[in-house]
């Protein structure tokens, strides 16, 4: 079988990037983001990107790097509060922004990957989110129609992979990665470790390898946004 493992993030993206494309990027805040693939996309110079990601990184890290280089034309996100450059570009009209409620965004990615072009939700009924959307009553309650999302490319971050592309995630670094893995026409995953075939327990694979076309092992900074700690009581 043709191997899925690539030697670095740059070669893993080879032939997959084009101007004006749509990219899904996993992660929540800076947790579980594909750091190395984002860097490689920055270095590729590809532009006019539509990026679907819950957040937009911070100034100079994560997707924030693609904002600095003006490679992003439009973001589809639920919360972008941590990024000054984002704010500047948005307020100046350089950047388009589509807000989705977080659960709607997650479900739209899941739906896109599962061949579901539309689903009804009560999230956002009666708010600006519902404007222009089809409303429908089920069992006496009103719901709005949301559509499935797919991307030309999904870049995701997992903890471990095997050579088949089976993935496992770690703790809350899972977040949007599993659904986005299913919704990319091509999906490239970066992981902390590629283990030999058979080392992952088939019963506990989070993302089956069928969803992952390319795989790269990376080094991670894993920057923390809000380091909150408590003090040990003195003995």
């Amino acid at each position, binding site marked *: 079988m043709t191997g899925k493992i690539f030697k670095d993030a740059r070669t893993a993206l080879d032939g997959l990037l084009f101007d004006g494309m749509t990219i899904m990027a996993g992660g*929540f*805040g*800076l*947790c*579980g983001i594909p750091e190395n693939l984002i860097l490689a996309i920055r270095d590729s110079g590809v532009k006019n990107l539509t990026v679907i990601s*819950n957040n937009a990184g911070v100034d100079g890290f994560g997707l924030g790097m693609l904002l600095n280089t003006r490679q992003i034309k439009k973001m589809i*996100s*639920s*919360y*972008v*509060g*941590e990024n000054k450059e984002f*704010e500047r570009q*948005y*307020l100046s009209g350089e950047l388009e922004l589509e*807000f989705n*409620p*977080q*659960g*709607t965004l*997650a*479900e739209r*990615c*899941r739906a896109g990957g599962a061949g579901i072009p539309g689903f009804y*939700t*009560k*999230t*956002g*009924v*009666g*708010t*600006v*989110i519902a404007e222009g959307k089809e409303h429908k009553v089920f069992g006496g309650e009103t719901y709005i129609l949301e559509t499935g999302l797919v991307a030309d490319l999904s870049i995701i971050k997992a*903890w471990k992979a095997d050579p088949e592309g089976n993935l496992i*995630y*770690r*703790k*809350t*670094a*899972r*977040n*949007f*990665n*599993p*659904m986005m893995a299913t919704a990319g026409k091509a999906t490239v995953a970066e992981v902390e470790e590629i283990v030999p075939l058979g080392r992952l327990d088939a019963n506990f694979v989070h993302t089956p390898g069928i969803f992952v076309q390319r795989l790269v092992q990376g080094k991670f900074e*894993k*920057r*923390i*946004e*809000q*380091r*909150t*700690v*408590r*003090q*040990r009581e003195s003995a």
Partner: protein
Amino acid sequence: MPWDRNQLAQRAAKELRDGFYVNLGIGIPTLVANYIPKGVSITLQSENGMLGMGPFPYEDEVDADLINAGKQTITELLGASYFSSADSFGMIRGGHIDLSILGAMEVSEKGDLANWMVPGKMVKGMGGAMDLVAGVKRVVVVMDHASKAGEPKLLKQCALPLTGKAVVDLVITNLGVFEVKRGEGMTLIELAEGVTLDDVKAQTEASYKVALT
């Protein structure tokens, strides 16, 4: 005396029931975890994908892969579980979370809630707030009764863009507690110690009944 932040959290904690699955918003709602009544055991959900959230970590426990919805480092308790954001919001949207406690900018007498954007200011996004208020079984708002400028926040109608329509079940302000019932409107059911009915009336635009318990 109006309630302070900790008293607000303490009053909100009385809404917790044994066995509840609870989602706490950022700010005062987070403090509620410090006042869980004796004999009551609850499980905290973090909407990025976790049940069984514990307190902040000790310095040597900090884990970049373990954060809450506010992006703060946290810990896990025994019996915790992790899941995707799709599964997490399936849980929320599907009505499996018993209680959500969150802050607000405005609440209307019909239970409309506004807490995500102020026109003209940079909009950060609604995050999971719209999903939570639409999906969770019981929505409790904790907020100051009036804005810093002294404007009422309990209104006939919200002026700010809504987070959810007719979604709030209970409002706890520093002056007292209001119940909201669908189709029946708002009822003042409790006053902070030393606060009078007139104090409340003076700072409230919404109509409400009074039925102190």
